C-alpha cells in the first residue's frame, strides 16, 4: 500500500514537473519554405537560446498566404516572397512592425537589397530580406541534348513554351510551377513582351502560350521537380534557382550519373527576394526577433547559403560563403545575366482575379 502511494506521488510529481517545464520552455513557431535552411540551424539556435522551435514548411506563397489570411495562424515568423505577396500583405495589415533595437545584427544586411524593398516597405519597417534568387529552368542536360541535338541553345524559354520543342521533350518530362504569377510572367518573357503588363489582354496572350503546351506538361508543381530532376524522372523543369541547384547536388551525391543544370533564359527572368516577417497576431514576437537576429549573423547565414544554394541578403556574409558557391553563376549571377533579370510589380486586385481565372482554366484544361 505504501509503495502504491509513493508511486502515485512520484507520478504526480513527475507530471507537475513536466507541466512546469512545458510552461517555462519558450516556443517559437516558424513557417518557412521547404529546403530553405541548413540542417543544423534550428538545433543550434535552440541550444543557444533555450527556445523551442516548432518548424513548419510550405512550398508555395499561396499556401502561406492562405494561412495568414485565415488569421490566428499561430506562427511567429514567416518567409514570403516580397513581390507581390509581402507587398499586399503589408497593405492588408497582416504584419507587425519590427523592433530594430532587438536586431543588433541588422547592419550586416546589403544596403542595395534593403533599398530595393523601400518602394513596397518604406523605411524597411516590416520586411527583413533573407535570400534572393531567380526563377529559370532546370535541365537534365544529357537527356535534353540527346533529344534536341547539340546545336539547340538551352538558355531559352522555348524549352517549356515552344510547342514544337516541348512536344519532343514531353515523354521525358516537362513541368511548370504551380504559380500563376511566375508562369504567366515567364510566358510574357518568352513572347518578348513586357513582363509587368497585367492588362487582361496581356494575361490572355500569356495564357494562350501556356495552353498551347499544356498537353505536353506532365504536372504543375512548385517543389516536386527537385526530386524528379535529381532522380532523372523529369527532363525540364521551370523552377527556382536554388531548388534546381539542390537537385543537381543531390544527383551528384547519389552518383546516379544525372547531370542537372540551371539556366537563366536569355529572354529574361524574374529575380525575387524572400523576406522574414512577423505576423500581426504572432504569439511570441520577442522570440521571432531573436531568431531573425540569429539569422542576420554572418556566421549563421553563410552556411545556410552553402546548403540551400541561394544567395543571402547579408553583405557581411559573402566572404564566408564557400568559394565554389560564390562563383556559381546560378547563385550569384554575373553582370550580363543580372541585366536580363526583372523585378515583378504587384498586380491590382482586379488584375489578380483575371490572372487567377486564366490560371484555373490552364490548370484544369478548360
Amino acid at each position, binding site marked *: 500500500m505504501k509503495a502504491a502511494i509513493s508511486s502515485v506521488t512520484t507520478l504526480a510529481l513527475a507530471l507537475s514537473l513536466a507541466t512546469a517545464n512545458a510552461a517555462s520552455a519558450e516556443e517559437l513557431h516558424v513557417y518557412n519554405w521547404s529546403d530553405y535552411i541548413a540542417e543544423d540551424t534550428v538545433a543550434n539556435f535552440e541550444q543557444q537560446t533555450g527556445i523551442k522551435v516548432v518548424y513548419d514548411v510550405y512550398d*508555395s506563397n*499561396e*499556401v502561406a*498566404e*492562405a494561412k*495568414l*489570411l*485565415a*488569421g490566428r495562424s499561430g506562427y511567429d515568423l514567416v518567409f514570403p516572397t516580397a513581390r507581390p505577396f509581402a507587398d*499586399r500583405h503589408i*497593405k*492588408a*495589415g*497582416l504584419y507587425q512592425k519590427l523592433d530594430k533595437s532587438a536586431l543588433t545584427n541588422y547592419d550586416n544586411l546589403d544596403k542595395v537589397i534593403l533599398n530595393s524593398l523601400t518602394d513596397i516597405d518604406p523605411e524597411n519597417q516590416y520586411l527583413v530580406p533573407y535570400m534572393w534568387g531567380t526563377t529559370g529552368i532546370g535541365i537534365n542536360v544529357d537527356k535534353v541534348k540527346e533529344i534536341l541535338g547539340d546545336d539547340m541553345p538551352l538558355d531559352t524559354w522555348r524549352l517549356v513554351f515552344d510547342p514544337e520543342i516541348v512536344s519532343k521533350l514531353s*515523354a521525358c*518530362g516537362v513541368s511548370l510551377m*504551380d504559380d*500563376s504569377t511566375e508562369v504567366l510572367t515567364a510566358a510574357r518573357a518568352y513572347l518578348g513582351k513586357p513582363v509587368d503588363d497585367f492588362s487582361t489582354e496581356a494575361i490572355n496572350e500569356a495564357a494562350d502560350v501556356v495552353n498551347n503546351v*499544356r498537353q505536353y*506538361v*506532365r*504536372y*504543375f508543381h512548385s517543389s516536386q521537380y527537385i526530386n524528379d530532376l535529381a*532522380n*532523372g*524522372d523529369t527532363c525540364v523543369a521551370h523552377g527556382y534557382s536554388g531548388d534546381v541547384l539542390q537537385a543537381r547536388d543531390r544527383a551528384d551525391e547519389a552518383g546516379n550519373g544525372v547531370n542537372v543544370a540551371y539556366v537563366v533564359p536569355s529572354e529574361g527572368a524574374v529575380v525575387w527576394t524572400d523576406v522574414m516577417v512577423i505576423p500581426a497576431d504572432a504569439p511570441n514576437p520577442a522570440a521571432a526577433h531573436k531568431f531573425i537576429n540569429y539569422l542576420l549573423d554572418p556566421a549563421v547565414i553563410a552556411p545556410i547559403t552553402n546548403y540551400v544554394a541561394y544567395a543571402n541578403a547579408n553583405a557581411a556574409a559573402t566572404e564566408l560563403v564557400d568559394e565554389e558557391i560564390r562563383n556559381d553563376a546560378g547563385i550569384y549571377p554575373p553582370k550580363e545575366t543580372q541585366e536580363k533579370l526583372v523585378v515583378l510589380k504587384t498586380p491590382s*486586385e482586379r488584375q489578380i*482575379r483575371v490572372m*487567377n481565372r486564366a*490560371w*484555373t*482554366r490552364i*490548370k*484544369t*484544361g*478548360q
Partner: protein
Amino acid sequence: MKGLPLSPTRGRGLIIGVPWFWLGLFFLLPFLFVLKISLSEPVLAQPPYLDLIREVEDGLVSISLNFGNYLLLWEDPLYRSALFGSLKISAISTLFCLLLGYPMAYAIARAPSHWRLPLLMLIILPFWTSFLIRVYAWIGILKGNGLLNNFLIWSGLIDQPLEILHTPLAVYIGIVYSYLPFVVLPLYATLVRLDLTLLEAAADLGCRPWKQFLTITLPLSLPGVIAGGMLVFIPVVGEFVIPDLLGGPDTLMIGKLMWTEFFSNKDWPLASSLAAVLLVVLIIPFVALRHFEQREETI
C-alpha cells in the same frame, strides 16, 4: 446506485437527441458557416471575405448577399465539367471497387471460420499506415523509373517505361486501392450473415450455382453493396489527395478545383459556394435512396 427516474419517453428523447445534437454541431453549424461565406465577396484582408452584416451607422445595419458566386458556377462551364469529371471518376472507381471487393468479401465469408479473422486483419492492416504515406508509395511504384516499370523492363515485357503516374489511370489505381476496404467490410458483414440453408434448398431443387448466386446471394447482399458503394462514391467525389499526388493536369476533379479557388485564388466565397453545391448534389441521391427504402418497408 439509484436509477435515474426517467420516464420511457424522456429517455428515448434523450437518446435520439444525442445524434441530432451531434449532427447539428458538427454538420449543420459548419455548413451554415460555409453557406454564409459563399454569399460574401472576396477581399484582401483577414479573413479574406466581407462580412455579410455591416454596421453602416450607429444601430443601422446593412445586410448584403452576393449570389454572384452561384451565378458564376452556373455560367462557367469549368465548374460543371469538374463536377461531372468527379462524378464520373467516382462512379467508375466505385464500380471497380465493387467488382474487386465482392469476390474478396465472398471468399472471406465462405472461408473456414478460423481463417476469417486473419483474412479480415489483412484487409484492415493497411489502415495502420498513414493514408498519405500509402498514396505516396504509389508514386514510387508507378513513376517512370519506379518499381513497376523497372520490373517490366527487367522481365523484357516492355522496353520503354510506361507513363502511368500523372495520368487518370494512376488516379483510378490510387482510389481503388485506398477505398477497397470500405467495400469489403460491409459486404463481408452481409455475406457472412447470409442463411446458407437457402442455398441448400435451391440446390436441392436443382438450381445451378451461378443461378443460385444471381437469384439468392446477390439480392440478399444488396444492402452491403449499397452501403459499400456509398462509402466509396461519396468521399471520392470530393477526393483531393489522390488526384493531387497521382493525377496530372488532365485530372479535373472538384476537390482540386476547390483547393485552387481556396489557396491559389484566395477566393473563399467561390470555394464555399462550390462546397455548398457539392453537398446538395451528394445529398439528393442519398435522400432519394432513403425515400425508396422507406417506401419498400411500408409495402
